[in-house]
């Protein structure tokens, strides 16, 4: 289960995601990120309160990143917790995503 918050900071639309991005929550995560990408030129997914992610959650993030690329939207992932960072690293997400230690804004 995830909870999503949205705010604007220094020109970035920041989507904060809290909870567990597992197979049950993946559709909700993808919808939230895609909606943000549809409506804003710079989108940051802020994952400091994300406790868990599986390949289904990663796919949701990748789908949003693809949509951003198609639309010419800047898309970044920020503030990963240590265990979530490990899953991103094992999956080679740094090859295809901009991953920041902190918010880019």
């Amino acid at each position, binding site marked *: 289960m995830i909870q999503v918050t949205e705010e604007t900071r220094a020109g970035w639309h920041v989507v904060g995601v809290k909870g567990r991005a*597992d197979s049950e929550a993946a559709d909700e995560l993808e919808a939230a990120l895609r909606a943000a990408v549809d409506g804003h030129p710079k989108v940051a997914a802020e994952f400091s309160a994300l406790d*868990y992610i*599986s*390949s289904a959650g990663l*796919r949701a993030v990748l789908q949003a990143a693809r949509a951003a690329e198609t639309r010419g939207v800047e898309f970044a992932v920020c503030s990963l917790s240590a*265990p979530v960072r490990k899953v991103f690293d094992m*999956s*080679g997400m740094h090859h295809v995503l901009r991953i920041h230690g902190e918010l880019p804004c």
Partner: protein
Amino acid sequence: MPQFRLLLNGNLKELARLTTETTRFCRQHSLGDDVEFDLHLVLEELFTNSLSHGACRGAEDIAEFQLSNDPDGVTLEYADRGAPFDPTTAPAPDLAAPLRDRPAGGLGIHLIRQIMRDFEYQRLDGWNRLRMRRPIPAEKPK
């Protein structure tokens, strides 16, 4: 050797039960947050693979898993009644492929292989049977 076994129906809603019971096992045996996280991840990947590839969706008792731990690590045995599939020999995904070419599948099995050791597969009596270990490094007590 402390053991735990759970049967799962072919429904994604079972994921919550799988997660709750795995957490209970890990905390009972003080396995630490890293081990708990890894077991959640590996079990979710195994179970969702069974649901999507094994024609198991909707049926009862389609998968079972068993956890047992000793001082050196946790042994996970997982079985499903789906079509024969050996994840130990599945090709690795191209992680460096550009975003638009990156394949949607294969990531779950890749993660399992990164985390677990001694990954073994057997097809037995209509079941895919997997066995693997999550080592617990001795120098990092939790």
